[in-house]
């Protein structure tokens, strides 16, 4: 038989018979944001389980840690690209890790699909976008705007305040919310911040109360700070009637417990989680069996979709020898992924643009009612 010759400009990955197709994940699986990454990793693992084999090859996952930091992202990236048998990456969890990692991945000719990077800069070619980067997570611009929309139009509030905690994700989201809300004609009475790790939020809440008090208070932070803000807001004079709202950083079991009664009636923006369909039911079953609990954060579905997008493309573009050896062109894989159109995933119907924004940006708002998130909008 004629020997296969690789013509792909970025090179090819070849798997001999019996060798597994290797993909990597680079998610945050240590440190304070562990839940986020572990949940996504489980999503990838279930996708692998469902797929079983790719063109007669097993699939193997090399799980790396992005540490939720720029350094962590870069190191994980270097580790991945030092292994030529890895064909694609699901990651990163955190946008901060995504920026340097996408650079490493891109330069080495690999491809990565992030399940949970939401920073606008990552898919902006004038800022951080690099060829080979895609994501199934929504862009923050969408979520912030959606929340503003909901507050202004749906709840009819005109005075709002926003608080962030200095996290890039939180800050970005709060900013987009504030800008959008003002664009809609509302008034932002205060845009302020706390620090990660703070516990006494009363002074800042009192300042917010004194500034308005706002009808609506949006703090898209994570569980710990969010818990403090929620509980203490109820205790600060002037904020008794303010509507509280947070974002997907606080959509989790732990968050429900952390806010307790104080969170009753509070709103949460986030990717639409009312996933439905057979696949998702099967997914949840598998999740429960494998890990003994229901998903702990929101991005498992995005990771599942990301992995499946990659698998689909591999199946589409790989060339197979008679003996079962497969060859995957790296550029071909990239092109295929960027051309993804109407991909039917758990998170919706995904279509990627030329800068890798693939999400079907369905943002919903849910309300905490009797200790459970209930989707109320749209």
């Amino acid at each position: 038989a004629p020997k296969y010759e690789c013509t792909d400009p970025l090179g090819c990955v070849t798997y001999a018979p019996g060798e597994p197709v290797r993909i990597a994940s680079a998610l945050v699986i240590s440190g304070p944001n562990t839940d986020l990454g572990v949940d996504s990793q489980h999503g990838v693992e279930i996708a692998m389980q469902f797929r079983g084999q790719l063109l007669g090859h097993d699939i193997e996952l090399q799980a790396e840690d992005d540490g939720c930091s720029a350094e962590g992202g870069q190191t994980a990236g270097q580790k991945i690209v030092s292994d030529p048998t890895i064909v694609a990456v699901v990651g990163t969890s955190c946008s901060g890790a995504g920026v340097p990692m996408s650079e490493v991945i891109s330069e080495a000719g690999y491809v990565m699909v992030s399940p949970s990077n939401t920073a606008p800069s990552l898919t902006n070619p004038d800022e951080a976008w690099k060829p080979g980067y895609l994501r199934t997570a929504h862009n923050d611009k969408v979520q912030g705007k959606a929340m503003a929309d909901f507050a202004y139009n749906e709840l009819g509030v005109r005075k709002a305040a926003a608080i962030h905690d200095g996290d890039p994700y939180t800050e970005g989201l709060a900013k987009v919310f504030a800008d959008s809300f003002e664009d809609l004609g509302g008034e932002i009475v205060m845009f302020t911040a706390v620090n990660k790790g703070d516990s006494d939020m009363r002074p800042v809440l009192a300042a917010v109360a004194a500034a308005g008090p706002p009808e609506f208070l949006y703090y898209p932070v994570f569980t710990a700070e969010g818990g403090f803000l929620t509980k203490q807001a109820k205790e600060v004079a002037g904020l008794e009637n303010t509507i509280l709202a947070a974002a997907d950083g606080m959509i989790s079991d732990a968050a429900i417990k952390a806010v307790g009664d104080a969170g009753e009636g509070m709103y949460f923006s986030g990717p639409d989680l009312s996933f439905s369909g057979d696949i998702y039911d099967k997914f949840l079953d598998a999740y429960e069996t494998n890990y003994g609990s229901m998903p702990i954060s929101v991005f498992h579905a995005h990771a599942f979709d990301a992995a499946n997008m990659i698998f689909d493309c591999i199946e589409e573009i790989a060339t197979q020898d008679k003996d079962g050896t497969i060859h995957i062109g790296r550029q071909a894989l990239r092109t295929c992924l960027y051309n993804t159109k109407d991909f039917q995933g758990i998170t919706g119907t995904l279509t990627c643009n030329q800068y890798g924004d693939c999400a079907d940006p369905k943002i919903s708002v849910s309300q905490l009612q009797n200790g459970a998130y209930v989707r109320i909008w749209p």
Partner: protein
Amino acid sequence: MRQRFQDIDYLGVVLWLLRTGIIILVIWGSVATIIQNPYSSKTWMDFIVFGVAQGSLYALIAIGYTLVYGVLFMINFAHSEFFMSGIFTATILLANPMKASGFLDSHPFVGLGLITITAIIVSVAIALLTERVAYRPLRKAPRLVPLITAIGASFFWQYFFRGLFGSEVKPFPQIEGLIGKIPFLGTEILINQVVVIVVAIIMLIGLYIFVMKTKIGKSIRAVAEDKDTAALMGIDVDRAISITFAMGAAMAGIAGVLYAMVFRQVHFFMGFIPGIKAFTAAVLGGIGSIPGAAVGGFFLGMFESVGPSLFLQGLGIPAPHQLKDVIAFTMLVLVLIFRPQGILGERLAEKKA
């Protein structure tokens, strides 16, 4: 010429500029804020109460740093973990199960008592274990060595408890009877804040009396001054040091319970920032001094609570509360420039010869 130049105390000039600069900035900011008058006097009162409550917690934790520092001249980085371990354990093993079973609601104070005792026991046990394993063998080593083991112990315990109880934020139940507000000087304060402040003050005074008046307290002070001579008096130095750790840890354990009462959630990482703040408070007040730790704690709590709104808001600084730690540390520097020994620190002899 060179001589003349050297004679100028340019350091003094720079220091003068620095502190005058800070003071002018603070005054300017405050005046601007007051002119804008964004807050009612009730809000100001709130800020003060918040600050005092937070300060009480800092003070209680700071005691542990100050006691250990006074005796061993060592920054016990792991102290923040003594604080965390007690209440974290008590919350998971006691408070939440008691809440679930309804016991806590039917017997709130018995329950709270049990939680407190458990928290103290765990904190003290962790402290004694740490002292025995990581500090005692290094008592006479160069000073930075135990500092490093303390840092190591801090990491170790943090992640030990994370492994044990998980990384999630855990809720701490509300205690019936401590919910609500009471009127106070034209404003209302939360009952749990009152409890925090009162308990903290009682504990601080009690501890001070204990250290100054009782035999054990005096033996600790003697050990602090000179271990060999203390042994010559018949004092068991190891025991005295263990007691010191235990007292500090017990205070931290109580601080943990108060913290949980006010903030109602616990986490394996919850000790880190209060720990740093409390150590700052201890230094601010004059490390080694018990009243100093108390004063430092209250001051720091006040700076953090009132500072951003008073000093920064008027200057039009965005998100002033984000900078509260900047204020806290700047105030620390300011105080130390004026009083290098801290607010109540003992005069380190001007310079010994």
